[in-house]
């Protein structure tokens, strides 16, 4: 008998688009966020076979709608959710967060379902690919009618088909209660949280940190009390990037003079013996900022042209990456190295390869042990044709053999084994399974 996994919150997205609708006029008619003028322009452009134009238009409309919705939840909250210390109240969210990040948070907060997130990521890759200027001259590289229709369908099904998109009710209630009441051991949310997949743990940590940084008075006291109850319960299962986020938050609160908040978080760190995750200096923040710039370029339009500049900046910052910034820098470098389904940025490969060659054995062990299992971005890449092929060229066999002896996570051991053996299908399958275990891709 199949068991339904316990989750803390879930998208309440209803099916708005019947499976059989395929006529473009009927399809567009389901787009509640599209005005009649938008609808008629889309239909006209589609019938004129301007598939790239119509796909870009509807895609931009959808992603902007998602970003707007995220913006309403507060920039500091979104910054924390993305673990992006470079985003502040003056940041233009539409420009600062990548499409991939917008889809990821929307899925994490239950704004869209896992299936919709999956479809939107596919649509994003297709639109990004066909936006490359060098493809324009070759008629073979034009977007087909079917591809355009799939993009339109994904956008309406995931975003534009709803008059209003918002976070899951349970998520909102949970977030409110974290600041409004003090949980006790019997709180049902606590029970659910402990059994929920990893991304709920990560999201909970990020909600707590965001509330601790922005709240005052009684709300801050409630949040700190809840952080002292919740974080110790999930700490041992957290991967290092999340632990560093807690440590970095303590450091920021201390430096910014937030006495009460830093004192509360200090209690948490004392309880979990987590002071090794407090950065010793501010150097790591500069590396994190650049790594995020690489990732924004990587998942944006014209990525092959935009990746080399931030990669070059990271290259010039020195070969030894501070450990608190190491996970995000590895995500960025490997993302560029693996590219997307359509290829890689050739101009960025030289510096990326040099930087990855400089990663010591110990750091690779650290990457496989403490980072990869919760890195949804890289796991998603390993599920794709193209990036997963390039993954095999990333490592020397003897390096992986040395590393695997020091890993205990069964999934990671298998992933390394399939890499050594060159088993492409098995690699995709284990990556997919790890991705779902994190809590992603489940509708």
């Amino acid at each position: 008998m199949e068991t339904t996994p316990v989750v803390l919150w879930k998208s309440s997205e209803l099916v708005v688009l019947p499976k059989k609708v395929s006529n473009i006029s009927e399809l567009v008619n389901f787009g509640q966020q599209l005005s009649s003028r938008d609808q008629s322009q889309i239909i006209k452009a589609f019938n004129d076979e301007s598939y790239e134009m119509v796909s870009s238009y509807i895609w931009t409309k959808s992603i902007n709608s998602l970003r707007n919705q995220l913006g309403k939840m507060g920039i500091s909250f979104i910054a924390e959710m993305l673990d992006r210390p470079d985003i502040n109240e003056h940041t233009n969210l539409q420009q600062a967060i990548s499409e991939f990040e917008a889809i990821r948070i929307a899925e994490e907060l239950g704004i869209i379902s896992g299936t919709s997130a999956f479809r939107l990521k596919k649509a994003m890759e297709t639109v990004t690919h066909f936006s490359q200027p060098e493809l324009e001259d070759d008629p073979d590289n034009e977007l087909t009618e079917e591809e355009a229709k799939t993009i339109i369908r994904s956008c309406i099904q995931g975003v534009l088909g709803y008059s209003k998109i918002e976070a899951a009710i349970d998520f909102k209630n949970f977030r409110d209660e974290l600041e409004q009441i003090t949980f006790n051991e019997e709180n049902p949310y606590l029970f659910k949280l402990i059994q929920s997949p990893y991304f709920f743990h990560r999201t909970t940590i990020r909600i707590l940190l965001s509330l601790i940084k922005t709240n005052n008075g009684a709300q801050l006291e409630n949040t700190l009390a809840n952080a002292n109850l919740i974080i110790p319960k999930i700490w041992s299962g957290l991967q290092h990037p999340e632990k560093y986020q807690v440590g970095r938050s303590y450091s920021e609160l201390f430096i910014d003079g937030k006495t009460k908040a830093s004192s509360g978080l200090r209690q948490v760190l004392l309880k979990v013996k987590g002071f090794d995750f407090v950065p010793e200096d501010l150097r790591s923040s500069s590396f994190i900022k650049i790594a995020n710039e690489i990732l924004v370029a990587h998942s944006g339009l014209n990525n092959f042209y935009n990746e080399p500049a931030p990669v070059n900046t990271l290259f010039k910052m020195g070969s030894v990456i501070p450990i608190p910034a190491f996970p995000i820098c590895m995500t960025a470098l490997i993302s560029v190295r693996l590219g997307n389904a359509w290829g890689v940025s050739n101009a960025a490969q030289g510096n990326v390869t040099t930087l990855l060659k400089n990663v010591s054995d110990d750091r690779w062990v650290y990457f496989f042990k403490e980072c990869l299992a919760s890195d949804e971005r890289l796991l998603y890449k390993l599920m794709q044709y193209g990036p997963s092929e390039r993954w095999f060229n990333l490592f020397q066999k003897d390096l992986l053999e040395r590393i695997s002896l020091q890993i205990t996570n069964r999934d990671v051991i298998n992933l390394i084994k399939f890499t050594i053996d060159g088993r492409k299908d098995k690699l995709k399958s284990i990556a997919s399974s790890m991705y779902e275990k994190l809590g992603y891709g489940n509708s």
Partner: protein
Amino acid sequence: MKSIKPVSIRPLLLGESVVFLGQENMNCLITQDGLVELISQLVYYKEEGKSLHPEIYIFDEMHMVQKVLPLSQFCTIGEGAKTKETMLIALKKCAPLTEGGWAIYILRKVDTFQYGVFKAGSTILSVSISETLIDAGTDELKAILIHQVAERLIEVKGVTADSLIISFGSQDGSRKSPLENQEKFINAILKDVKPDLKEQAKNFFKKLFLEVLQKGHGTLACVINSKKKELPKKLSDGITLPVKIDVVKTISDLLEQNDLQANSVLEGQFSLISGMMQSDGITVFKSNGTVVAYNVFVKHPEKVLKTSTSGGARSRTFITISELIGSGIEAAYLQSQDGNIEVN
């Protein structure tokens, strides 16, 4: 023949030190002796004729202290036998290094005392060492702070033990640290500051008022409502700043920009206001954290002139501005040279 009766406060201090260390779970025969010596030394501590007001921390675990104090810098100066003499050497060698936010540490090892100086944080806004290790300290990380809070007034604080306020002056022993009255006045200065900037502003003013207190110059200050566009007439005899010093705005800039320029502006305001408070007359704050005037003098009304007060002109001025509370003034502050602080 007349005999000589020696009077020493040492036995009293020693007794209190033993109780204090016991409550703090940091019992140690050598530390209790050393504590008494340090307290006595700090009363009039001078090097090359210059008064110094170092904070001395005693703890047992260096690694954890380094971890809980982000961006901390430690400079070890020496290490010696576990004796009270080593504690005094630590004070002598390190005290001249404690300008600019540095404090002295004495690390109790198994057989030795290691000593040096340390600081934490990156700006004036950062949470202070005493707030982190002592006021919001925890049992897991024991620490003791010994410092001079005003002339002839020494405070010894721990995480769990009752604090000791040791007065070497003629004033009656107070049950309160003068810093408590100071905090009350600072709260009046920050009454109308937005909640999200209040803590940072409080850190700034606490450090500022502590500096003025330790410099040993008496000072007078008052707070007027932030909505008042002009100074009350009774406070018009002084230097009214054409452009008020908006500390909270600078703090907000620093938090947003997080750059050296914003930090330098804030540090500049710190020394400027400190200088104003050490000038004669009253420094006038608004209840939104701004400074609007200093070197302000008020006329003492007949009633006040006839009042019998043990203090001098400063005390009479304090009485005068206290009388104005409710009619233009919201709080009044007096710090006498001997460290006595009164707030109305």
